[in-house]
């Protein structure tokens, strides 16, 4: 494996799940947006009840001062929000569906994920964390976590779910994975080997779930519709079609 020294590490990433500044991709900055968040396609919820009052004051004060001092602009912030919200597990599901159908792509993906994705999905992943793809099989089941913070293949799956960042998941999945998986409704056969992957450093992990029976001959779009976010984290399996 080649050296990655100095390229992007520690920059452009959040404290864990992050690092997705796809400057190579088009953004939506040319659109008119920003002033009316309730009309925005990624409109956030406006429930502020859960926050400490000083947090709300601090956020506004810090944002205003960073803008006034010329460190950031309001449009920088809005553009970043839009870009972050535009990334969803749909992309991951398309990647999985293609990997299920195309052996050459799957092998390339498992060998070195970023070049394989760059070619097949025209993604510019230059400023994103390293990525490894793990394949679930009839013999082995991978489940991904980050016990130290919230590292997550955000560039492929979007924002991590709250449970992924929770104390409970982070504490328990490395010491009782089968119990945690059962809470997600995932009861693996006893002979299935489990590998719990703790994303402790610069590598992010994406799981290719086991392709369910009854999907032979399906096209990519139909397969992708079966693939859930949780199956690409490894807490769920992809269920056979009803």
């Amino acid at each position: 494996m080649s050296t990655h020294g100095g390229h992007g590490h520690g920059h452009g990433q959040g404290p864990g799940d992050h690092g997705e500044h796809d400057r190579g991709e088009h953004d939506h900055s040319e659109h008119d947006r920003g002033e009316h968040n309730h009309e925005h396609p990624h409109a956030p919820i406006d429930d502020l009840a859960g926050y400490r009052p000083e947090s709300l004051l601090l956020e506004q004060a810090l944002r205003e001062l960073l803008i006034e001092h010329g460190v950031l602009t309001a449009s920088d912030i809005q553009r970043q929000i839009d870009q972050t919200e535009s990334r969803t597990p749909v992309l991951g599901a398309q990647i999985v569906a293609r990997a299920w159908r195309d052996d050459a792509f799957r092998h390339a993906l498992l060998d070195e994920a970023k070049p394989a994705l760059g070619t097949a999905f025209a993604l510019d992943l230059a400023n994103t964390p390293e990525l490894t793809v793990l394949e679930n099989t009839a013999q082995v089941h991978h489940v991904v976590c980050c016990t130290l913070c919230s590292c997550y293949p955000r560039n492929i799956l979007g924002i991590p779910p709250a449970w992924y960042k929770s104390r409970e998941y982070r504490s328990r999945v490395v010491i009782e994975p089968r119990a945690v998986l059962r809470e997600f409704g995932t009861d693996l056969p006893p002979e299935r080997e489990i590998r719990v992957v703790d994303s402790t450093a610069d590598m992010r992990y994406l799981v290719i779930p086991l392709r369910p029976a009854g999907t032979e001959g399906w096209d990519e779009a139909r397969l992708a519709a079966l693939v859930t976010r949780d199956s690409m984290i490894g807490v769920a399996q992809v269920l056979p079609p009803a």
Partner: protein
Amino acid sequence: MTPGSRLAAGTPVRVRSGDPRTHCRTPHYLRGKCGIVVRALGDYPNPEELAYHRPGMPALALYQVEFDSAQVWGDRLREAPYRIVADIFEHWLEPAGAAG
């Protein structure tokens, strides 16, 4: 391991013990535990330096290391054996069997 050395897949290693009390990416539950190198993941600036606004060079080798659940948890293990995989920087690894 000494900087610059390269660990091959299958090499038995032990994670160093200790608690630096500063930023590091080696989780406590793996410290002092023995595992097997799965593969080298490349070289990256040292996060323990980056955390304090320093450049973190020279870059350190990062290894994917696999651990057996029984080895990690001992008598705390409540489930059938499984494996844990984590990414550990070279300066946190030593040859398995060396005094920890």
